[in-house]
């Protein structure tokens, strides 16, 4: 086993442990920390695959924005001093297991079918400039559509907040 493989295995373990903590922990704050660990593991995998820009974006968006928002939501609405919850019911657990197994098999099949260009010859050499050019040139339409989607969801969230305020 060389150094690269060793790093890869460590990153895999970090990602998996984080994911398992997210799913299995009874306390919501530990679940959130597990999510953060997973995101860092994935960012590490991106760095390992020579895509530092993607890795930094992963941390900036998922750890910096989304998890912090989740944490904020937990603190605002959650019961603040509740003890970690007991295990959920068996039926719920089995259902969750089935759903995740199903999605895993789907993804597994897709991954196995895709012809991967293997070997070291095709090293990943995309710079930030390339990504920027792609986003505003070739992929301009999808990019704009995604931003439209985000705007719609933001308006929806604001409307929901206003509506529930009016009801009080």
């Amino acid at each position, binding site marked *: 086993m060389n150094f690269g493989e060793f790093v890869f295995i460590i990153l895999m373990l970090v990602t998996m442990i984080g994911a398992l903590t997210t799913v299995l922990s009874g306390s919501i704050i530990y679940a959130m*920390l597990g999510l953060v660990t997973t995101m860092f593991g994935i960012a590490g995998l991106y760095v390992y695959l020579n895509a*530092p*820009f993607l890795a*930094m974006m992963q941390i900036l968006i998922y*750890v*910096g924005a989304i998890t912090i928002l989740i*944490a904020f939501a937990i603190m*605002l609405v959650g019961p603040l001093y509740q003890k970690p919850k007991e295990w959920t019911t068996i039926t719920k657990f089995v259902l969750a297991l089935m759903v995740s197994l199903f999605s895993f098999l789907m993804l597994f099949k897709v991954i196995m079918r895709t012809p991967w260009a293997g070997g070291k010859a095709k090293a990943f050499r995309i710079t*930030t400039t390339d990504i920027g050019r792609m986003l505003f040139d070739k992929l301009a339409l999808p990019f704009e559509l995604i931003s439209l989607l985000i705007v719609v969801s933001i308006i929806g969230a604001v409307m929901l907040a206003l509506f529930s305020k009016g009801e009080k």
Partner: protein
Amino acid sequence: MNELNNIMSIIGKETVRAIIGLIGVLVLVVINALILTWAERKVAGHMQRRIAAKEVGPFGLIQPIADSLKLLGKELITPANVERSLFYLAPTLIFIPVLVSFVVIPFDSYLQVKDMNVGILVILAFSSLSVLSILIAGWGSNNKYSLIGAIRSVAQNIAYEIPLLLSLLPVIIIAHSLSLKDIVEAQNGLWFVVYQPFAFLIFFIASVAETNRTPFDLPEAESELVAGFHTEYTGMRFALFFLAEYTNIFIVSAIAATFFLGGYQGPILPGIVWFFIKTYFLVFVILWMRWTFPRVRFDQLLNFSWKVLIPTSLVNLIITAGILKL
């Protein structure tokens, strides 16, 4: 020298550079905190027409060392009802962003641990971890004051992260690079603060808010929240929060100096001297602000960010992009 070359040939130049860099960074963190604790007392004292620390050593210069020895000697108390793992994790976690940020800051044209082409993104991405550790500290302490401090900190950081990013973007557009070294090199003629005075102001205000300093120190407002998120921490754990806060002040000043004040560029004196002069000037301004401005109210704080800073920085960004495209 021969031995160093031997070591380099065995474990590789990059690794040696990283190790030396890390040692340098740790030394700088400690020395900076010692200087800043002393400077803060002195600045505070003279602003209030007092003399401040003067007993220990000449001008009280040994005082910070005495203070740190005192902190090292204190008992580490773990209150009974804290969430132990979170309580221990928080002071350690707050140090990761601090250490990572130093990796990409160029102290001189040759003095930088690693020049990455995503340099500024590294600092911005990891800076979110400090919010997370404040959150964990507040939650893990199981204390209402800590928790209120943590919630305030998160709200404040969400609000001020956006103008912070938006104020850095015009500079990145002008310099055509995310690498901090390229940005400094691009300021060879004229500093970016001349082109981007508004961006500089917005960045400075937002970064003071990000470091939780007065007038934006609501997460640790002494007069209402005891000490905010670090109420329950004692001894070295408290000192770690303290160290991180002072290092954060240094880092935001260093980024401001790099982005807007030409970094290590300057006549006659060597680059590193210019870098530290500019950085510590900004640090002094931050200390000065603490003893000049009263603490803002929470709604004022959030309104200021969402209604003033974000629109201004957006307009600034659009105008800059438009002018560059002309």
